[in-house]
């Protein structure tokens, strides 16, 4: 049972990551490869606040969200001047930079040794300790993220983002300050990515930089490519599919030493297959064609 609940917690974490990246990718048309960086910074801010300063999880969480939003603002201002592939390269550089800092700034992040002993969330004397309790907390977070993005996607703000994705020049000619919209979308996306970061840190009680690499960013992109972009359903379906497919390997008796490589092959094949056969993903409104 714990195994199933563990998968559920991971689906909840990636579902939130997918929804937040979808605001950039599916709505703003901004292809970011830096989502794991925000996920990681959110995890580290909350973990370090809890471990070093005794913060409660629910106090550390908003600090992590605000920290990631400010970081997103810092990254967005120079990189959003770039377009298309160049923007993607800028986010790739940021992702690499964050990983390098997490890995080498040992006095603060403890580098490759990671941060251990991260306390479990506590609220009004109730401790979230068991896997099923994390699954419920994750479900609450996921529901909050769904509600947030549902409102944003359906709003005039979401409509302008879609317009920017379709034709930025035309949006400018209608009086839209497209830079402001893209910067705020980047901040919201980065801030929300801190949420699963903090949840992940508290859940596994130990984090190190290897959980927040470029592979992780690509993984989040994969779940949007598979599920589809530009609506709520796509990233949700994508999170379930991309996390559940590799679990099937467990029933095929593939040795543990080979399984991670097979998983990577499956993800790669999934991206290529979807790009070729269904560029809109399974449920997407917006294609990558």
């Amino acid at each position, binding site marked *: 049972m714990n195994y199933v609940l563990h998968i559920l917690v991971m689906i909840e974490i990636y579902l939130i990551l997918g929804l937040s990246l979808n605001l950039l990718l599916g709505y703003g048309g901004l292809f970011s490869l830096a989502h794991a960086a925000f996920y990681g910074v959110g995890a580290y801010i909350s973990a370090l606040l809890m471990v070093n300063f005794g913060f409660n999880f629910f106090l550390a969480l908003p600090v992590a969200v605000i920290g990631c939003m400010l970081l997103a603002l810092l990254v967005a201002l120079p990189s959003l001047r770039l377009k298309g592939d160049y923007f993607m390269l800028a986010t790739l550089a940021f992702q690499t930079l964050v990983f390098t800092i997490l890995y080498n700034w040992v006095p603060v992040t403890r580098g490759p040794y990671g941060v251990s002993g991260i306390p479990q969330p506590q609220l009004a004397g109730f401790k979230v300790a068991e896997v099923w309790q994390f699954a419920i907390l994750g479900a609450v977070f996921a529901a909050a993220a769904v509600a947030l993005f549902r409102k944003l996607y359906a709003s*005039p703000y979401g409509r302008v983002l*879609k317009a920017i994705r379709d034709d930025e020049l*035309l949006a400018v000619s209608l009086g839209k300050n497209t830079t402001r*919209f893209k910067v705020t979308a980047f901040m919201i996306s980065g801030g929300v990515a801190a949420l699963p970061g903090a949840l992940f840190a508290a859940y596994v009680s130990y984090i190190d930089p290897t959980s927040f690499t470029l592979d992780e960013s690509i993984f989040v992109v994969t779940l949007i490519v598979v599920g589809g972009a530009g609506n709520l359903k796509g990233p949700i379906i994508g999170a379930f599919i991309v996390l559940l497919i590799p679990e099937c390997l467990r029933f095929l008796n593939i040795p543990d030493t080979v399984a991670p490589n097979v998983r990577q092959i499956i993800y790669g094949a999934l991206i290529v297959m979807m790009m070729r056969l269904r560029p809109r993903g399974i449920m997407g409104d917006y294609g990558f064609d």
Partner: protein
Amino acid sequence: MLELNNINKRFGGLKAVDDVSLYFTERKISALIGPNGAGKTTIFNIISGFIRPDGGTMLFRSKPLDGLPAWKVASTGIGRMFQDNRVFGKLTCLENVLLAKNGNPGESPLGPFFSSGKVRDFERRNAEEASKWLAFVGLGDKKYAPAENLSYGQQKLLSFARLMADGRELLLLDEPTAGVNPAMIGEILALIKKIVKEAGKTVVIIEHNMSVILEIADFVYFMDDGRVETFGAPKDVLADERVREAYTGL
């Protein structure tokens, strides 16, 4: 309404606009004509803020436009239709027109959460107005159709509805009949006249079709090599030797 004084623009060694002064009168249709590369679209890009001129001044309703970014120029009341058909293809016709209205409190990311009542009211009024403009251009029955599903000519009509939606006073139309089937050209010309006569807008049009110019323009500027060569009433300008030479080679 809009005056451009001694505008200059160079692209490297090429002088795209050379000391051009233009005056556009309110509620009239003015036309910019001239061969390809004459600098007409560059003038539109300069007016709408997409290109900064190297020199000269621009006044719109006696207020300077110089140095304003494109999105701010649009909010002063100047609308622009591009030479190539531009629509938000994945959005419906109604959404395309809704986007034209500025000052929507729901366009702030916090608006939908903290001013939902205001956003709802604005959206309701905006939708009523957008529907009115869609009907005005003859697309009333296409409200919920994705813009990418419209024909080329219908997409042009949608661009007109979008231009009208935010009370823009001056409309810059870059070859509005280019690529449109002949049957629809008449419909578009009738619409332009209606926009000026009934809605009181001012129109500046770039056009290569001289019969269109004769039919709708009140005043014409002929440009060549980045300069204004001659201007005046359409019949007089089209009778000018330089214009005839540019268009017929005779």
